[in-house]
């Protein structure tokens, strides 16, 4: 069905003949509508259903920074994209195969992303003159032939939902709110998912509002039935279950995973967790998650600002608990003075920066990874500290534990970088057996004999003492301190020694980093080096290139300061090093400086993740010998 489909307005008569089911390898679906249309909910519910079907999937929510923008406006459009497949999935997909557009503004702002020849399911009931005007459409795109390149299904979702709920007794407004469940039903049916589980979930979710629960179930069923009943869709689709490692799974966003990782660190070490934080998008969910876990040894403190957030965590760490703070870019800037104190105090502390679009307030709800150099260099004085980064939602869990492992072993603040993409996106998480998690040993010093506050162990870490321990009373502070006693010292050579030892301690962590995993050939023409949330796009781009016979390797760095000790050698084994980053080349700078090698940059700073194709294209160019000196960005 090409071109605009004829308007259809069918009831719910049941069709008898079974429809053919087409098997697909993977599908990318994007739900878009007004912020008030419940697209995030629809997307979430859909992915849960997909997950239970044994698919791998990855999602990308994209919402405006306005809380609830006026209906129908272009800036008020909220979206949720999911890719699911019969194989491993690493990104939410470059271009949607299917766009579910709940109104004209949503269609307008998202159309250009849709795959050529892709499918558009449009809520035709919302394409009124008024809303077309708000979206800046001179003519109805469903009618004017402008969608010729797509398969368009017009369904009056608003109207059909109202029809289904006409006896529900709900107000018009409430009925309007049910249309996202109609859309969900539609898609579940189209992708051959059963309805019964979902109905149960709806009833659970709206347990306190049974009338609404029933209405949503009705809408869901109506949408589901619509596909079965009408002739609009010639086929349904089925994506085979992925070949996924056995285990129990749940769907987890990166922020949720980060929170769980910290709780795990606390439980495994037996040391309570303290979060001091000030809300900021897109980091706040970590605070929300932890605030709800007070039955663990967890204290959350919503501080008056970011400075108090980190300072309270420093106080807690001095008190002998796992102190941590969470924030994003501008908040990170405010914490840099206190970070310096933490480096001087040599106390364990974890700082999570869920990066967002910068500079300044920038694009708070958009994705970027441009705080790397700030993490490494953004403090006064020689002030080194370890920096690690997570590469996917579920990797956040592991990185949170790794951050505390380093923090307590080396008595140092550790910065963990994630980003808004990872933080809000969900993917299946294979639930680990707590007993299988790495041990996290914490030893507090209690022996007064020979205690010197700044005496160090083999890792150059000083000892951790809990106030309340008799005989170990001592003072710490931000002034330079004596190498052993920790008393204030202005001695020139002592200062040199302390500056050197703080640097050596952090550099020494490299000994503790496992050998770098190289995907692909151990040497050759092209190595891609990435960090953070570009992981999925790079993996898929490399796989495509490899499938086409190119020899391409990939290293994805978790440890950004210090770098793994084998990194320099690895880099030298390839003729070309390609570094894709969602910034202007921050990792590139570090690699150039540390290893004196040139790298090919691929930079994108658009508030959006890399498309697989953008990286793939660059790989192919490099494999085909386009001069590597031409560092460039994408889609300018």
């Amino acid at each position, binding site marked *: 069905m090409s071109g605009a489909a004829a308007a259809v307005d069918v009831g719910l008569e049941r069709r008898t003949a079974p429809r053919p089911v087409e098997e697909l390898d993977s599908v990318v679906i994007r739900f878009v509508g007004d912020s008030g249309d419940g697209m995030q909910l629809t997307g979430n519910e859909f992915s849960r259903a997909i*997950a*239970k079907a*044994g698919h791998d999937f990855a999602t990308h929510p994209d919402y405006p920074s306005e809380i609830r923008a006026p209906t129908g406006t272009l800036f008020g459009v909220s979206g949720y994209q999911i890719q699911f497949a019969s194989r491993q999935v690493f990104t939410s997909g470059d271009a949607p195969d299917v766009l579910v557009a709940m109104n004209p503004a949503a269609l307008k702002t998202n159309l250009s992303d849709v795959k050529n020849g892709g499918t558009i399911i449009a809520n035709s009931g919302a394409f009124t003159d008024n809303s077309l005007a708000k979206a800046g459409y001179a003519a109805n795109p469903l009618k004017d032939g402008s969608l010729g390149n797509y398969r368009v299904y017009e369904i009056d979702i608003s109207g059909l939902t109202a029809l289904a709920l006409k006896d529900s007794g709900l107000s018009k407004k409430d009925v309007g709110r049910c249309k996202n469940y109609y859309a969900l039903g539609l898609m579940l049916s189209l992708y051959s998912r059963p309805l019964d589980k979902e109905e149960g*979930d709806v009833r659970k979710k709206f347990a306190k509002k049974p009338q609404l629960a029933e209405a949503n179930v009705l809408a869901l069923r109506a949408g589901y039935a619509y596909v079965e009943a009408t002739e609009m869709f010639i086929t349904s689709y089925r994506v085979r279950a992925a070949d996924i*490692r*056995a*285990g*129990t*799974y*749940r769907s987890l966003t990166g922020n949720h995973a980060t929170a*769980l990782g910290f*709780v795990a660190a606390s*439980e495994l070490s037996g040391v309570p967790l*303290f979060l001091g934080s000030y809300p900021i998008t897109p980091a706040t969910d970590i605070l929300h998650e932890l605030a709800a*876990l*007070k*039955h*663990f*040894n*967890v*204290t959350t*403190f919503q*501080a*008056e*600002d970011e*400075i*108090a957030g980190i*300072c*309270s965590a*420093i*106080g*807690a*760490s*001095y*008190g*002998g608990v796992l*102190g941590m703070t969470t924030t994003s870019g501008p908040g990170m800037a405010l914490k840099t*003075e*206190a970070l*310096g*104190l933490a480096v001087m*105090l040599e106390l364990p502390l974890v700082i999570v920066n869920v990066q967002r679009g910068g500079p300044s307030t920038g694009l708070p709800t958009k994705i970027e990874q441009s705080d790397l150099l700030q993490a490494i260099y953004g403090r006064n004085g020689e002030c080194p500290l370890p920096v690690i980064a997570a590469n996917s939602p579920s990797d956040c869990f592991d990185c949170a534990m790794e951050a505390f492992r380093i923090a307590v072993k080396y008595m140092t603040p550790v910065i963990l970088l994630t980003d808004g993409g990872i933080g809000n996106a969900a993917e299946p998480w294979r*639930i680990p*057996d*707590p007993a299988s998690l790495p041990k996290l040993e914490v030893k507090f010093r209690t022996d007064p004999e020979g205690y010197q506050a700044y005496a160090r162990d083999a890792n150059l870490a000083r000892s951790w003492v809990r*106030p*309340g*321990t*008799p*005989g*170990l*009373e*001592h*003072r*710490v*502070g*931000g*002034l330079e301190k004596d190498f052993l006693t920790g*008393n*204030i010292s202005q001695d020139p050579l002592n200062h040199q020694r302390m500056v050197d030892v703080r640097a050596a301690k952090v550099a020494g962590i490299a000994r503790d980093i496992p050998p770098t995993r190289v995907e692909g050939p151990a040497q050759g023409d092209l190595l891609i080096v990435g960090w953070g949330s570009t992981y999925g796009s790079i993996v898929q781009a490399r796989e495509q290139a490899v499938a086409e016979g190119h020899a391409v390797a990939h290293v994805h760095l978790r440890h950004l300061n210090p770098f793994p000790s084998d990194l320099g050698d690895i880099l030298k084994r390839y003729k070309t090093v390609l570094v894709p980053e969602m910034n202007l080349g921050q990792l590139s700078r570090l690699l150039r400086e540390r290893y004196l090698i040139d790298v090919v940059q691929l930079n994108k700073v658009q508030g959006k993740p890399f498309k697989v194709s953008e990286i793939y294209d660059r790989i192919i160019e490099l494999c085909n010998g386009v001069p590597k000196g031409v560092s460039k960005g994408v889609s300018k």
Partner: protein
Amino acid sequence: MNAAAALTKKDFETDQDVRWCPGCGDYAVLAQVQKLMPTLGIPRENFAFISGIGCSSRFPYYMETYGMHSIHGRAPAIASGLKLARPELSVWVVTGDGDALAIGGNHFIHAMRRNIGLKILLLNNRIYGLTKGQYSPTSLLGMKTKSTPQGSIDRPFSPVAVALGAGATFVARTVDSDLAHMAGVLKRAAEHQGTAFVEIYQNCIVFNDGAYDAITDKSMRDDTRLMLEHGKPLLYGKERNKGIRLRGMEPEAVTLGENGVTESDLLVHDEAAEHGGLAFLLSQFDVPTLPVPLGVFREVGAPSYEEMNNGLQADARERRGQGDLASLFNSGDTWTIV
């Protein structure tokens, strides 16, 4: 060291040289605090002193307890984290007028409103000492300092008023030169549940010498200071014949016996007044028109922040049981692939 009973002042002195200027008011405060500690029945290892930056903020180095000399203005925030993490500790904050009310103003007011169990001693010398003599938020209008060669144009804070405005439950004021009074006020602060704030007038002999002469000079201080006593009328003066009367809502200094004024006309001090209007009025008193109040302006009971926080945790455990990783991991929607 564990037997708190056996402790003496000496046990709270460190081996570090005290690095204040000779004659600095900070010495007296240090001595009083070191004297107070052994009387509180708390093991030495359960004390922590947290400070920011400033002359006064060197305090922790001289206290043989746990302690931190942190960064400028942030001591209340650091101490709040420590107190929340370890409610059983006795956590003291020592700060200056710049540290607490310039850069640290925000943490200061938030500590007050939260009523978290910190004892906050603000050594107010109305000057930045450590940076060698710029005016502070408590410097008087017109004061000439290095950064105000023509005199300050900033209206000063009353620290007591700021604390009251922020909802403090314990607010007091004392002065470095009156050791007995200081001792009494500090003891009261130590015993208060929740945030206890004590402003200590402190003489900086180098950059603001004599700032408090009007109320410390023996020849006049009885006429310029008003010693607050709960339940007692606001009486002062060498002959204790002066007092404070209310006229509408405005205070007025009167002399007993003149114009028929008797003691019963005077305002009676009430630390515990629920709405704090009297304490606020008193915070606005200053020489020359009105005497300067010393003592406890306000002490009211309210649950402390750490207590309430403990309550949340206890509640959560009661409702959900002590947290368990396996069930946390497996909560929500899960599915199993075989």
